[in-house]
């Protein structure tokens, strides 16, 4: 199994925020993180993600959807970066690489993965997380 003891130990101190308006993806992404022992919470759109940070919370990793109501992932990523948030932000959306994701990446992403997110994609994202 991929969620070996080593992976669990390495991930034990990592915290994550799942930003997605779909309850299906919220459930799957949270479960993927939980199975790797990563503490996490959910924001239902970009604005909620910004609000959580305004209240002083910080995360090592943010899994950011692109299409969301109220505030999309592009704007949320840009806003968080403008606020000085240095967390690893991984864009996760169903847009294929060749579609218009460049704007999303330019907004300040550290990584981009096409949905559906899997254990192996998550592990590849986690390799970019810098725990200080």
């Amino acid at each position, binding site marked *: 199994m991929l969620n070996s003891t080593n992976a669990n130990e390495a991930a034990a101190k990592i915290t994550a925020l799942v930003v997605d308006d*779909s*309850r*299906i*993806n919220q459930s799957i992404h949270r*479960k993927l993180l939980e199975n790797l022992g990563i503490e996490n919470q959910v924001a239902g759109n970009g604005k909620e993600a910004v609000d959580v940070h305004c209240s002083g919370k910080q995360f090592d990793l943010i899994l950011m959807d692109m*299409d969301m109501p109220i505030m999309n992932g592009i704007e949320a990523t840009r806003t968080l970066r403008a606020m000085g948030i240095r967390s690893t932000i991984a864009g996760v959306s*169903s847009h294929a690489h060749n579609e218009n994701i460049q704007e999303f990446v330019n907004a300040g992403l550290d990584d981009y993965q096409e*949905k559906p997110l899997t*254990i192996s994609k998550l592990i590849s994202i986690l390799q970019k997380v810098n725990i200080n």
Partner: protein
Amino acid sequence: MEVGQMQRQWVDYTKSLFLEGLLDGQFLQLQQLQDESNPDFVVEVVSLFFDDSEKLLNDITRALEQPSVDFKKIGAHVHQFKGSSSSVGAQRVKNGCIPFRNFCEEQNIEGCIRCLQQLKQEYYLVKNKLETLFAMEQQIVAAGGSIPMLELSF
């Protein structure tokens, strides 16, 4: 029926869903995520998918009935449907969304109506099959058995 026989039936039924292309590897991912801490994970996620899908299908149907059809809005719904079906591994539903989006871009109403009918058929087929699968799982558990782990490779 004894538990072993039920489990064999469950394995055969699950395999048939993959062989017919109704499900893809993403569904296996969900099954692999399920554990003792959350034994109903797959059923919960798939139930959310059913709720979402029926809302989306209704919204798309209504939008196509308007005197002035908003193709951009329908395209956004179809994109959402493609995302949710790919998240649960409902492969044929996901595949049905691809030509549908193209027809939205072309503003081709006949094409959209045809795709919607096909999408509904594919959705209700996979829903029916998954409900049967979950009912089989309940029977296995009720008889004191456990759900066999599938080792499928495609």
